[in-house]
């Protein structure tokens, strides 16, 4: 486990303190978890303990909420997070084949991160870009109208740009 940066923890503490002052403030657990993920990229176990103390909730409850929702990561993601859209429109247009290619290229399954911490592969239920189906989102950018050939090239390009750095 990496050490947790003190500055970020401080920012989170302030966020919690402010939010607890609003009406029904203690109901904001999910907002706090969103803030945590925004700061750290995932929900580190130690930070959950911290939230538990500040919000007077059992860590088990926080863990229960964090694991219920797909949006929260419990492990650190790779540098490039590939979210493959598995919505209906993408599926009808061949998302399953795109997924197979990505899995082969990266040697990981959905939900995993490559050993070099470069790529993570996540499922997305629908990115709402059905007109461009099939699509993937890499970090915040959408890549649409994919084919098995295009996605292979895309991953290759990301790898190349890393080697040049």
């Amino acid at each position, binding site marked *: 486990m990496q050490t947790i940066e003190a500055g970020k923890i401080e920012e989170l503490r302030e966020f919690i303190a402010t939010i607890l002052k609003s009406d029904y403030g203690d109901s*904001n657990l999910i907002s706090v978890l969103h803030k945590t993920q925004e700061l750290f990229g995932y929900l580190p176990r130690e930070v959950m303990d911290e939230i538990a103390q500040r919000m007077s909730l059992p860590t088990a409850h926080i863990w229960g909420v964090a694991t219920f929702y*797909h949006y929260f990561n419990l492990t650190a993601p790779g540098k490039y997070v590939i979210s493959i859209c598995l919505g209906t429109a993408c599926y*009808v247009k061949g998302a399953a084949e795109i997924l197979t290619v990505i899995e082969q290229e990266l040697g990981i399954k959905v939900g995993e991160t490559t050993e070099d911490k470069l790529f993570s592969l996540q499922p997305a*239920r629908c*990115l709402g870009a059905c007109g461009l189906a099939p699509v993937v989102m890499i970090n915040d950018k959408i890549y649409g109208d994919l084919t098995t050939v295009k996605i292979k090239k895309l991953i290759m390009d990301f790898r190349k740009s890393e080697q040049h750095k």
Partner: protein
Amino acid sequence: MAYDTIITFCDGTRCMHTQGRALQAVLEQELERCQIKDRVKITLSGCLGMCDKGPIMVVNPGYTIYGNLQESDIPEIVAEHIVKGNPVSRLVIQEDHLYNRFFRIFGDAKFFGKQMRIALRNCGIIDPENIDDYLALNGYEALAKVLTEMSPTEVIAEVKKSGLRGRGGAGFPTGLKWQFTAEQEGPDKFVICNADEGDPGAFMDRSAIEGDPHTVLEGMAIAGYAIGAKKGVIYIRAEYPLAIDRLYKAINQARKYNLLGDNILEAGFDFDIEIRLGAGAFVCGEETALIHSIQGARGMPRPRPPYPSVSGLFGKPTLINNVETWANIPVIMLDGAEWFSTIGTEKSKGTKVFALAGKVVNTGLVEVPMGTTLRQIVYDIGGGIPGNKKLKAIQTGGPSGGCLPEDYLDTPVDYESLAAAGSIMGSGGMIVIDEASCMVDIAKFFLEFTQNESCGKCTPCREGTKRMYEILERITAGEGRDGDIEKLERLGNMIKKSSLCGLGQSAPNPVLSTIKNFREEYEEHIREKKCRAGVCKELIGYSVNDNCIGCGACKKACPVGAITGKTKSKHEIDAEKCIKCGMCIATCKFDAIIKA
């Protein structure tokens, strides 16, 4: 010399009889006198059809229609409108309904011709990040009207009269929901906007909020006034960053203009809106699960009653409506329930927004009057199936809905007709499926989704959907057994009857509807181990035909080295090694590789 104004006279018999030509002469004189003759072009048009209001004169840009004109009106129009740019409102023929503006701007393109935009009336027209744009198009006028002219009871009566039903899918009468919440005692009540759009393949709410966030805020404020709530919450998916950003901007702008906050428009009404983010759980679209999620817990549903209208958010009476429902409210208040209820069918009033996607030429959002047929949506608006392929099915309602085959193309879209056909209206996902898709595989796709999203609280949904999924997996892997179809039907009906919430109660729909409409495909998979669409990998093999020129592209593309052959001679695929990934088909430029 370039013109900046075009004035068109109706040249219909009626208008010209009622001194149209005399008006034209006066106008020409007046323009001459003001020395702006060069700027203005005068044209004649065919009959505009508004004969009872003749003579008619249209000023563009702006499409201002003047009617019942006298010669004495002309100087005023020239001085005020043409010179200063302010239309003379007493002479303007009353603005037609809000939604018509859309067509005036985008014209009668084939894609728009059969649509009617009420909920999406401003999308694509206004700058969604600028409240002034919304205000210019009658924005917040409905709220002002309600606060100054109507009592809460009258507002609810108007919503009831309009016949508006919940656009989230279930179609519960909106007015009744409002009335139930209004009848509850107590100062603390809540209004919630459900923007947790979870159906894969649906993006109506996202686009509606991104295109016109203020209409949702206005609708919620009107409801707050009607039911006596001071606080609104928008629960929106975290996966929609742009929509969230625009909502925040809109709320801040509305507060600045005193359209949200304390003492709105000095009418003694307080209302404010807060945003809460979802975190990727489909079940949170169910209202009791959504409430749990806002309260910071796992989003699990609970049995109803009590309904949220009695005991909802933090135990207080709560009114929950979907984004599209909210977007209809300002229009109903401005144009009236009577007008609204003329649109649509007997039991389903107004319009419905669909997210049209899949194998169709024009993918995108369409808003059509209830009662429009599926054929009109797919062929007239959607432009048909690309590549001249044959339509196989239309899927509506997402994972809770069903697949309707070609025979049902003339089904009108309304709550009852779609339910009778074995699907549901749902929140508005509409996926077009062509012959390249396998219906058993589609059913498996939806089941995989629902069994994954099942919250696990009740047994029928948690265990039942999993077992159904396993059976479908077996069938698509070529290990189907006699009796599997019957087992799926029995299990499906049991889950529908005994699940706790809407997720489980509708989860078997994709399977049951595909069995009903495409039973022969299931039978082929089980008995003949055949997948006619060539989708189920275990049931197909790849081979090379005589189109092959031996270019070697497929050999390079194959990730497992299953393709062999000399350059310039026909290649071969080793079925043992082949993993059926489809790379070779995607690479081949000569259609030389086939699935069979």
